[in-house]
């Protein structure tokens, strides 16, 4: 099928993929209700009803599984489905009698239904060892282990509000973990190696020097060839040098690991969006199931579930009880690493006498 080469056509127009009930009620939805875990109904001003069944997804999907989803969509939804911004899959039905059979089929192929309303939804995550050169930990494996443990909160246990978890396998934070209720962040803790033999062939030394925010990198001549040298004292492991220069690898099995962050949010509901804050500076990479990470996340989740008020996101909960009590309740030790020492450090100090004594 040799035809002229097409470019710049852009994505297919979404309209062709919308089910009729959506076309009819587009922009004219009246309200929605949560029918049961993982199932909600949107009711149009017309009275029409759209049922959504949300199923878990590992995000990393093989074509077979996608074909399974397509088959289920044909069987129950006249072929209509979508994915969510947190990578779950949503089946769009108009006939509520088909909901339970669909759920049965989904569970049969290992995709629990849930994640709607006040629940723990899917973990936004990244590539990790599956595809990225920059990873300090794996992404999919940690997510699988953590969600196995928290699955009950996805399929329906009552919790105070939404809890969003994200994972990024390095400081580039492709998972945008910087604003999550709980964030799992892969970290390097050893300054980059310097492959002097090929550095000047592969990398532009001025770019490498410029890439370092703390000016830890200086040009240098190492046995004859031009290269760079590093003041390890100044390195805070951001990995920016490696991003611009492959000859400065950061990955290191002995020192790479995971840090845990809490209290971020994105929505404007009640309180303004918040950045995540450091909760646990370091946990080891312990594949295949990262038990230390799983336990740490569960511990924080349980403290929140037990003590937070209705609607209260993690960060709102902590703001109410105060950080000292958060550390007490979770049993997490407060350490030097928790204290900011970057650009805005001073603003994170407690600049008032308002203290619980």
């Amino acid at each position, binding site marked *: *099928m040799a035809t002229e080469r097409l470019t*710049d*056509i*852009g*994505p297919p127009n*979404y309209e062709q993929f*919308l089910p009729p009930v*959506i076309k009819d009620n*587009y922009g004219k*939805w*009246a*309200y*929605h*209700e949560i029918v049961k875990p993982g199932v909600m109904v*949107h009711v149009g001003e017309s009275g029409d009803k759209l049922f*959504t069944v949300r199923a*878990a997804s*590992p995000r990393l*999907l*093989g*074509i077979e*599984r*996608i074909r399974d989803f*397509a088959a289920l969509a044909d069987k129950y939804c006249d*072929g*209509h489905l979508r*994915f*969510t*911004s947190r*990578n779950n899959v949503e089946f769009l039905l108009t006939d509520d009698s088909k909901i339970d059979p669909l759920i049965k089929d989904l569970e049969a192929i290992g*995709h*629990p239904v849930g994640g709607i309303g006040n629940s723990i939804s899917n973990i936004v995550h990244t590539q990790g*060892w*599956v*595809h*990225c*050169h920059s990873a300090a930990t*794996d992404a*999919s494996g940690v997510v*699988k*282990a953590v969600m*196995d443990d928290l699955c009950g909160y996805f399929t329906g246990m009552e919790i105070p509000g939404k809890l969003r978890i994200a994972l990024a396998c390095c*400081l*580039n934070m492709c998972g*945008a973990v*910087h604003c999550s209720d709980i964030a799992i962040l892969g970290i390097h803790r050893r300054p980059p190696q310097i492959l002097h033999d090929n550095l000047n062939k592969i990398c532009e030394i001025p770019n490498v020097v410029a890439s370092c*925010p703390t000016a830890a990198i200086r040009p240098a001549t190492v046995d004859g060839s031009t290269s760079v040298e590093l003041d390890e004292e100044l390195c805070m492991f951001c990995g*920016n040098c490696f991003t611009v220069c*492959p000859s400065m690898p950061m990955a*290191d*099995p002995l020192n*790479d690991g995971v840090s845990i962050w809490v209290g971020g949010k*994105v*929505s*404007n*509901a*009640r309180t303004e969006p918040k*950045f995540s804050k450091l909760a646990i500076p370091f946990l080891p990479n312990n594949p*295949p199931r990262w038990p230390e990470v799983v336990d740490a996340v569960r511990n924080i989740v349980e403290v929140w579930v037990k003590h937070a008020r209705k*609607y209260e996101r993690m960060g709102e909960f902590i703001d109410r009880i105060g950080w000292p009590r958060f550390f007490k309740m979770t049993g997490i030790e407060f350490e030097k690493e928790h204290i900011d020492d970057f650009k805005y450090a001073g603003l994170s100090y407690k600049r008032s006498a308002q203290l619980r004594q």
Partner: protein
Amino acid sequence: MAESGKNGTPMLDELEKGPWPSFVTEIKKTAEKSKMSASLLGLLERSYEEKIGHWKHGGIVGVMGYGGGVIGRYSDLQEEFPDIAHFHTLRVNMPSGWFYTSDALRTICDIWERHGSGLTNMHGSTGDIILLGTTTDELEPTFAELTQAGFDLGGSGSDMRTPSCCVGPARCEWACFDTLHLTNDLTQHFQDELHRPAFPYKFKIKCAGCPNDCVASIARADMSIIGTWRDEIQVDQAEVAAAATNGIDIQKDICNNCPTKCIEWDGDKLEIDDENCVKCMHCINAMPKALRPGKDRGATILLGAKAPIVEGALLSSVLVPFIKVEPPYDEIKDLIERIWDVWGEHGKNRERVGEFMQRVGLGNFLEAIEVEPVPEMIAHPRENPYVFYEEYFEEE
């Protein structure tokens, strides 16, 4: 021992256990048909044993005439895993709102079965369909089939990244503008900027229909377009009363959680002082049948969010407090172009627009893009006395 088959993948096998769907199962199932996937399994098992990744930087690979859309990737264990010596990713621009038909999905699967590993991410963090892993030779053929099927690549590198949006009016009663239409329209309008990196760094656009921000635009997009309204919240007092009898403690759950305390409840009537409502959505979220956003709808445009590399993470901040969002969206497109012009000319290499804005100073930035400063853009005026007064009088 490249193939997982040889001596198995004991560590990865552990990740097939448990209630959550397993990516390992996905790779294994795909490995039955794809050597690439089989090799990936082996390579990954190795990473699990050694606690380190086995990928190297990708050089410049891509499809003809495009600078973006492909992430090059090479294994550092090429001899042991020749099938994935190259393992490039294609980013395919998803349809707005991630809506599909079963046929559309099958089309993609068929193409990817012919030309790649058969593995995908549905979807990537920016929103693209990620076709995970193929060789350099397969890039053009894959692209050819995709475009024939009506799909095109998404962004990567220093270009406009694939814009994304929440489900919006398609399935949400709170959408204050048509997120899907705007996203699709901008994506089509800026095809050149999407495919041919010419910016100082990446530029992301995300559209959320209301302040709940279901695409995390304020945290993850250089330009965040967030729906809002400027008239009164629509109140159905009867439904409020109903909610009050259905487990909602209106004083505690609603009034006390209102950021500006502008809702009052006397036991049978809900009074909202809309002048002081900051459109946070909470009361509406809590009582979807009783309350709805106002009717005079539009969006707030915010600028500058990004991850921490390397000056620290940023949230987007208000650039346009309220704007009507209607086709053909000329005002928004002009604004975007003015921003790109200024940033493109004066931005440093790898400087995101949010960092640029701070470096040159928001005031100067506004002058350059011809936007009037208004107090809505700031949380508070300056606390320091270091004003750069621009001119001074001199004696005659």
